């Protein structure tokens, strides 16, 4: 069965088994390796992408359910080669350690700030409960996010 999906603005036809996780389609078929395959059970958030604009854990999304839907991955954030304001603030604050959690954190915060551009510290922390950073850089991540919220 073929599934037509719009991925980062480009039409894609996936012929994988319908129950294949979207994460595997992204990484193995399209070589979009930004989303990471880590826990594969929805806990760590390293695989988060946007589905029709909302963050989802791509490890738990069966590709067969995606006919006609739009997926955006971390690769789309700097589409013109220019990092997004969120990416820039993370770089300025030198937040990234190993980087494993980062694609997911960027996708969570990108959609979160769209709805709550001037969010406070507690709200940012609550938004990030599904993103585990194994290098435990949480405070610096939140500091950088707050710096961005203050600019808005």
């Amino acid at each position, binding site marked *: 069965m073929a599934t037509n999906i719009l991925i980062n603005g480009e039409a894609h036809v996936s012929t994988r*088994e319908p*129950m294949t996780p979207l994460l595997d389609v992204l990484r193995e078929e399209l070589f979009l390796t930004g989303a990471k395959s880590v826990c594969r059970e929805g806990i760590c958030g390293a695989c988060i992408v946007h589905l029709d604009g909302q963050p989802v854990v791509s490890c738990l999304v*069966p590709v067969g*359910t995606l006919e006609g839907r739009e997926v955006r991955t971390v690769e789309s954030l700097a589409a013109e080669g220019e990092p997004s304001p969120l990416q820039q603030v993370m770089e300025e604050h030198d937040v990234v350690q190993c980087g494993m959690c980062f694609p997911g954190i960027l996708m969570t915060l990108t959609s979160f700030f769209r709805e709550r551009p001037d969010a406070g510290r507690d709200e940012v922390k609550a938004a990030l409960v*599904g993103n585990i950073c194994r290098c435990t850089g949480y405070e610096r991540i939140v500091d950088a996010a707050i710096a961005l919220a203050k600019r808005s």
Partner: protein
Amino acid sequence: MARSIDDAVAALADRADATALAGGTWIMRAPIRREPPIRFCVGLTRIPELNAVDISASEIRIGACVTHARLVSALAGVRGCEGLVTAAGSAANPAVRQMATIGGNLCASAFPASDLAPSLLSLDAEVELSGPGGDERLPVGRFLERRGSLEPGILLTAVVIPRRALKSGHARLPLRKAGDYPVAIVSMTAELRGDGAVEDIRVTVGSVEASPRRWTQLEQALLGRRLDPNGAYDLAQAEAHIFTGRDGVDAPGWYRVQVLPALARRAAQAVLAGP
């Protein structure tokens, strides 16, 4: 992907190995639970009726495929639903809440830690089922008892909550502040008289035993008195012995029971804090 309830019921009846698929957040983890992977699914999320939320003066009807995130936005500020909004908005994490549905949460058998189940039980909700033999409506508690042995081809189509002059609260204890499954849950729905006395009350306990259930002994003790969080704590302390906690990797059984009085106090606080 089915387009109508009839389509889905027919497709499920047609193949013995077919499974209903809603948000997928339970089904997709089958390999991690060491269950055989599920190959043939009938997708429900594109069926329009299953995505509707209808709020009338007498009841609230929630389609089975309404996600946790949608529940929060659709029921925010609706009187009586405070506890359900807390349950839907604090279960799991934001990206899972975006996909996980109310129907999938109730139908995932062998899942003791559900937030929605005890909350809906305290709200006296009913569920509607559709199957090859027709439609049926039954209390959520009866459904939870039956869910492990549902005949193939039966779909949960909607959850219906009666509207009365109620206030509700949901107190859960995850091991971290958020993002974990709750170790124990107390959900409380009460009707208070003008003087603050309890006219009617339902208290349910989730995640402690294999299935959520009502805490009728505590309900009896609270009935007719002024609802007071510290009083609820003391009464709960005296009645907690009726539960036998399940041992799990997150917490031993005795711990789940030990925290119930504190959760009863928090649930009472939440009920009183409501509008």
